[in-house]
């Protein structure tokens, strides 16, 4: 197990390249919080239960991601600012296959 690199564009448009551990059962939402790339209280509000869409992000690279669960799919149908490449960061677990993943945080809604 080793760290991978993930590129995240924050809500201000600033690019960050961060090291993400693959052995701590973390997801993209938690990674954003760990690096404080979005203010506390504006991301991960429901704690990662696919219930608030505050961690919505747009996937910019062509990595193969795990399929959306019915919960994630349903939440995205209720969320705002949704695009074809929208995903909930809390539902994407960090694995070695995601090395080099590029994403952008959706606006706060």
């Amino acid at each position, binding site marked *: 197990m080793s760290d991978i690199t993930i590129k995240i564009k924050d809500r201000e448009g600033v690019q960050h390249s961060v090291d993400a551990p693959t052995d701590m059962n973390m997801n993209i939402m938690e990674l954003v919080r760990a690096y404080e790339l979005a203010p506390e*209280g504006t991301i991960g509000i*429901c704690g990662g239960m696919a219930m*608030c869409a505050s961690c919505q992000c747009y996937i910019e690279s062509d990595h193969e991601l795990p399929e959306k669960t019915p919960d994630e799919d*349903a939440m995205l149908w*209720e969320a705002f600012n949704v695009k074809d490449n929208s995903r909930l960061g809390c539902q994407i677990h960090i694995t070695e296959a995601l090395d080099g993943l590029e994403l952008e945080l959706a606006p706060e809604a």
Partner: protein
Amino acid sequence: MITTDILIIGAGPTGLFAVFEAGLLKMKCHLIDALPQPGGQLTELYPKKPIFDIPGYPEVLAGDLVTNLMEQIKQFEPGFTLGETAETIDKKEDGTFIVTTNKGTKHQAKAIAIAGGLGTFLPRKPLIENIESFEEKGVEYFVKDPEQFRDKKILIAGGGDSALDWSIFLADVAASVTLVHRRNEFRGALDSVEKVQELKTQGKINLMTPAEVVGVHGEDYLTAVDIDKEGEVITLEVDNFIPLFGLTPKLGPIADWGLEIEKNAIKVNNALDYQTNIEGIYAIGDVNTYPGKLKLILCGFHEATLMCQSVYNRINPGKRYVLKYTTVSGIDGFDGTRKQAEKAVVKAIQ
């Protein structure tokens, strides 16, 4: 004017447990919450989800934890102002505070404990032009009093439990209920989904999917909405439009109370008593921040306990007290009840 010893802003688990600890010290509490029921995010967001890190409970449903907390504090007779938001605070010369809600309800207290969690849960508003001008004039984001909708033509939008549950409930109250969702699938308890299906078959709920409300019309009051159904825009006459797209927390008016704020949270003195930069105002639970802060329910319980001890000393200067154990002392409720350990039997064995 409601008067109390500690006014707790936020009726989540931390605020509720503070009532217990205050009660042990003979202090009365009153709670204000923006939501129509106590429990905070546990009740509003995930009542059926298990929590695994409450000491002594290997597993407890969030909703059950709130039910248990309400049971635990009932003998201390807390007061509640629900469905209202604490808006302004005034510190009087005698050291008491007056807190006024958005509905004008006034509360006077000797100390304030902000237990606001992530903030006030405000409705997520759909991105529809001009919708603000019809708020509370036909557009309602909460169902506080179902009677308000008796014999009205109602349109509910959303795809989750709230949309399903209120559609079911209002089907018997309103003149008509139309439920609009962007897709055919709903996310909710299975029996709710099946009940809506049944009411649709009986013609009691008009279901429009996949569809979306895209416009609102009226003079002073809402009279109609535009619905985009697969590219075709239909105008439907309605008395009320209830968008139920969930809630999002905002710190809200508390942010303007002169408290030191850092990272969307209130800075407190964690070495002592979780008091803010304003003497007599405390912040406990997820709403506060200090070095090493963890947003956990169990940490909120601890913070509530220390806060109560500090408030006791504040409002009873010079009145000596030592911590007592409930196992030894029992609990004397404000309602006249007494709970205590059973006395040991002293009897000779022949």
